[in-house]
């Protein structure tokens, strides 16, 4: 998802009897749904995993501004442009809520940014795909934000207080994102034949990458089992993906466009849609840095950070000078 395949650093999920008394008390609090707050004792692996997960989530929000920012200057109307700017600004805000939540665990903002820029930290695979037409902005809001909501709503109940609270804020704002995307798709679907073809083309390109956002099946993963025990992962990747497919297919039907999956069909017995095999080789390739836009995205981020360096330094120098003047005046 926005945080994919988060490594917990553990080899096995230990039984209560194998834990130290501190860990037992910690796990008991989590089992009783008591939130963990930053200054309280927590196992190092819990802290490190959360830093990895929350920073990856934050990086995804920030890098996620790039594919959509690509269309701000070319939005078809002033209204669409204003809406897209508000949406991209929200993504920036979401990144900031999440960086702040991660900082409560003792990692600095600069360290997280440095990890992203050096390629040590990941962000979601989805943002390495290009936005080729205006319809892609519709598809991203509808599908990518739709998938994000699917993942983030359960995280509002996660065990770490600052992360859960950030998720509550984000989820409140996210449904505007999904609706504005679907609204773009609706306009295109009701438009000319060419516009409808654009909507179908965007769905064709974004459907599979959206399903990959949830990550590979984690039924056998020790990291997922550990994260579930810590309640920082609430539902499995496959469960979330199935829910997403079930909710999205009827929405495509309404638009009169079709998923690029010949195996997609309703399974009355299961009460769910069956869908075709996902190309995990493509996913692994994108995760490794070889997607269509990986290098471009990172280069853009690094350039923005470096170009803004003098502004950050100047603002700090100004603040220090003002503080020194105020102090001198107070003495005099």
């Amino acid at each position, binding site marked *: 998802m926005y945080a994919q395949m988060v490594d917990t650093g553990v080899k096995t999920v230990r039984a209560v009897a194998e834990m130290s008394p501190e860990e037992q008390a910690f796990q008991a609090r989590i089992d009783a749904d008591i939130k963990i*707050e930053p*200054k*309280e*004792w927590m196992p190092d692996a819990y802290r490190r995993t959360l830093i990895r997960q929350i920073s990856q989530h934050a990086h995804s929000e920030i890098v996620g501004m790039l594919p959509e920012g690509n269309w701000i200057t070319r939005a078809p109307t002033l209204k669409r442009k204003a809406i897209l700017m*508000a949406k991209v*600004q*929200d993504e920036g*805000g979401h990144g*900031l*809520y999440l960086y*702040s939540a991660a*900082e409560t665990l003792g990692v*600095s*903002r*600069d360290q997280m940014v440095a990890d992203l820029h050096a390629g040590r930290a990941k962000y979601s695979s989805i943002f390495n795909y290009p936005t080729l037409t205006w319809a892609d902005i519709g598809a991203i809001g509808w599908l990518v934000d739709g998938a994000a909501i699917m993942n983030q709503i359960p995280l509002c109940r996660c065990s770490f207080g600052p992360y859960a*609270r*950030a998720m509550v*804020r984000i989820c409140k*704002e996210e449904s505007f994102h999904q609706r504005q995307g679907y609204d773009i798709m609706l306009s295109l679907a009701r438009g000319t034949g060419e516009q409808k073809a654009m909507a179908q083309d965007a769905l064709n390109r974004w459907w599979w990458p959206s399903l990959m956002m949830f990550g590979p099946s984690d039924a056998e993963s020790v990291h997922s089992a550990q994260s579930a025990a810590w309640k920082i992962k609430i539902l499995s990747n496959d469960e979330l993906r199935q829910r997403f497919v079930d909710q999205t297919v009827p929405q495509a039907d309404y638009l009169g466009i079709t998923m690029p999956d010949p195996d997609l069909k309703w399974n009355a017995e299961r009460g769910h849609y069956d869908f075709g095999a996902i190309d995990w080789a493509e996913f692994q390739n994108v995760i490794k840095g070889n997607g269509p836009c990986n290098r471009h995205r990172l280069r853009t981020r690094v350039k923005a950070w470096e170009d803004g360096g003098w502004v*950050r*330094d100047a*603002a*700090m120098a*100004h*603040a220090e000078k*003002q*503080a020194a003047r105020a102090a001198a005046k107070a003495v005099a």
Partner: protein
Amino acid sequence: MNEWPLWEIFIRSQHGLAHKHVGSLHAPDAEMAVKNARDVYTRRNEGVSIWVVRSADIVASAPGDKEALFEPANSKVYRHPTFFPMPDDVKHI
């Protein structure tokens, strides 16, 4: 690297309530902290007033002191009005 200091942000919502902690952000000084808080935490009319406090200036109780601080109140149930049953015939009390 010269990281901007961290500030804790408190917002008074529209409803005339007390300022409430909403999160934190980085800013070089108090004035910029208020401006950034406007952008980060009140994009949807969430507030009518903002407080910013340097995170380093906040003094917090330690999680380990919870018992010493709060346990004594547990035994003082008579501080709640429901501790005193009133006869049914007595009204307006």
